[in-house]
């Protein structure tokens, strides 16, 4: 296990060096929040990919495919094609009409205080859900991998938390971006080598690979079964399977374009054209990586087997266990270290978007009516907020413990983004009549309905046999009120409906009269925030 620790320590050393370099280099709000808007398309694109290829992807997606075959692959497919929405609908107008956060675009034509306050709530909610999932995952992984070296779950969680606070507080967006870039490259390299090893195991015969994936033998509820992992239906079954799949797709395709930590990335480039190029880069990387998850997941099912994985750390350990089986302990250590690095980088990305939203949307715009009381206040508040966000995430992750079932939290984050953020972002940019109350009610209805539906979904509600215990046991022991795991199919229309009703019930000519201004700015880049010079 010491190799794992060494690779991870090397990553920490390099990233702390970068943080030091970034802290020397940057000063001022634009530098801190948006890396001075000087990143290139390639740099930002790789960082977007890094943000998106979280541990949930590297460990979680492969794990779902290793246990539920083809149905699991539908997560990465939807997660990837979502970038078509990002590219065609939001990236460029967002870059042209905002400053630091998604709320800038929402509040452009509206009364900023209520809109930004509400947008800040939804941003912080999404970031927190994501972050808890990552922290619990990190802690569980470390505890499992390094149990011989005396590092406990709690130490691991606190360590990850402190590191991310250091990156964000001292290095700002520039350091966070470079941490993300290095990690994305490590992860692509790891996944590529591992995929080649899987195919090499089958002597590079796709026929042999698919044949093996078509006959996976394992135990299900104590019974020996052989299943075709390429056949749909292992996870999503009638009567609600199809609806759940469509609902999942809706959440992914529209949710990605509403994820705060992805959206803030488009403010780090000089102009809309570069924002467009960064989506291209991200699509090349994310697409290649997500296709590889199917090779890794089916490979893990066929080569390692669900039975072995289940007794050696569970489905989230599929990727490292596959590496161990195919290339021994050294590669296992490397892959595990990449997984830590991933968690660290993604948590840092989430922390900076949460603290930026708190400082810019809530503190400056809502509490202090849009003006800094003294120069540099916003950055100082963001740094303090990063401490706060980090501390809260550490505390919750420690309280939940390593066995907590947190998989649904990422689904929840995506669903909130799709139901609360996406409708209001689109309407703010393209619907002249849209106004302050529309934005506030749209955000509120989307937020409440997506969270509410998940609370009463099979993810949390269900009646278990008394033999089921621990993380597998449902939190609420009653029949689920809402039959789908994914709320999008209902909560996204509700988000739009909330926005429409709120708009039509109020009259705000000022919002409409600024529509042309926003349209011209968002479509041409006239008057857009420019890159800072050093």
């Amino acid at each position, binding site marked *: 296990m010491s190799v794992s620790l060494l690779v991870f320590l090397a990553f920490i050393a390099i990233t702390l060096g970068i943080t030091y370099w970034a802290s020397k280099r940057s000063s001022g709000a634009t530098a801190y929040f948006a890396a001075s808007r000087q990143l290139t398309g390639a740099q930002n694109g790789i960082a977007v990919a890094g943000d998106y290829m979280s541990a949930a992807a590297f460990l979680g997606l492969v794990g779902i495919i290793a246990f539920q075959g*083809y149905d699991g692959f539908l997560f990465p497919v939807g997660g990837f094609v979502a970038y078509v929405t990002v590219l065609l609908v939001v990236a460029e107008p967002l870059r042209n009409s905002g400053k630091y956060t998604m709320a800038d675009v929402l509040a452009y034509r509206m009364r900023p205080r209520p809109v930004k306050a509400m947008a800040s709530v939804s941003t912080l909610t999404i970031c927190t859900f994501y972050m808890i999932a990552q922290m619990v995952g990190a802690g569980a992984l470390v505890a499992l991998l390094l149990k011989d070296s005396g590092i406990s779950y709690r130490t691991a969680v606190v360590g990850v938390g402190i590191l991310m606070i250091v990156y964000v507080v001292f290095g700002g967006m520039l350091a966070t971006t470079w941490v993300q870039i290095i990690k994305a490259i490590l992860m692509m390299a790891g996944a590529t080598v591992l995929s080649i090893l899987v195919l090499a195991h089958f002597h590079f015969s796709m026929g042999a690979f*698919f044949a093996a994936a078509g006959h996976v033998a394992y135990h299900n509820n104590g019974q020996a079964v052989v299943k075709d992992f390429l056949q*749909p239906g292992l996870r999503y079954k009638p009567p609600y399977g199809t609806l759940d*799949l469509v609902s999942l797709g809706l959440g992914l*395709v529209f949710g990605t374009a509403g994820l705060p930590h992805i959206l803030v990335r488009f403010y780090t480039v000089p102009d809309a*054209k570069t924002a467009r190029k960064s989506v291209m880069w991200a699509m090349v990387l994310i697409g290649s990586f997500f296709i590889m998850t199917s090779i890794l997941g089916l490979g893990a099912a066929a080569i390692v087997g669900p039975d072995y994985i289940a007794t050696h750390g569970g489905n989230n350990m599929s990727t490292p266990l596959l590496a161990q089986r195919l290339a021994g302990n050294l590669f296992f250590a490397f892959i595990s270290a990449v997984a830590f690095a991933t968690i660290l980088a993604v948590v840092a990305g989430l922390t900076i978007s949460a603290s930026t939203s708190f400082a810019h949307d809530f503190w400056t715009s809502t509490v202090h009516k849009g003006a800094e009381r003294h120069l540099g206040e916003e950055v100082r508040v963001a740094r303090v907020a990063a401490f706060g966000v980090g501390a809260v995430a550490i505390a919750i992750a420690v309280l939940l413990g390593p066995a907590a079932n947190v998989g649904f939290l990422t689904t929840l984050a995506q669903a909130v983004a799709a139901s609360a953020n996406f409708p209001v972002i689109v309407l703010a940019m393209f619907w002249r009549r849209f106004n302050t109350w529309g934005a506030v009610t749209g955000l509120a209805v989307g937020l409440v309905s997506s969270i509410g539906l998940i609370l009463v979904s099979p993810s949390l509600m269900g009646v278990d046999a008394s033999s089921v215990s621990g993380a597998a046991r449902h939190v609420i022991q009653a029949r689920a009120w809402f039959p789908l795991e994914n709320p999008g199919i209902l909560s996204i229309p509700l988000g739009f409906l909330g926005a429409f009703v709120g708009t039509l019930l109020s009259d705000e000519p000022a919002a409409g009269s600024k529509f042309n201004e926003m349209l011209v700015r968002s479509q041409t880049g006239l008057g857009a925030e420019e890159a800072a010079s050093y």
Partner: protein
Amino acid sequence: MPEEIIASKTTPTGWDRVAATPEFRGLITAKKVFIIPVFLFFLVYYFTLPVVVGLAPHFMSTKVIGGANLAYVFALSQFVVAWLIAWRYLKAAGKFDLRVQEIVAKADESRGGE
């Protein structure tokens, strides 16, 4: 941003004037003509996947090529289609950029070279 063009609510602002120019309207039309059909095609193509996979899992398990089944090939095609859309958009956006340059140049001119 110069203050005078964000000025009053009653008289048309500089932004309103730009919004009314044929160049700007042309840009918006050109974008709509490209983006709306492409985006709708994308949505239909993508959502066909969960629908057919959910409704006809056995049919989608038909082996088609190199041991892969229809469901897997259809899923992979989603990646290819998304990449093709992105590539087509990149080319179209190059043309939008030319229109934007024209609009920006004109707007600067009418502001009297501020």
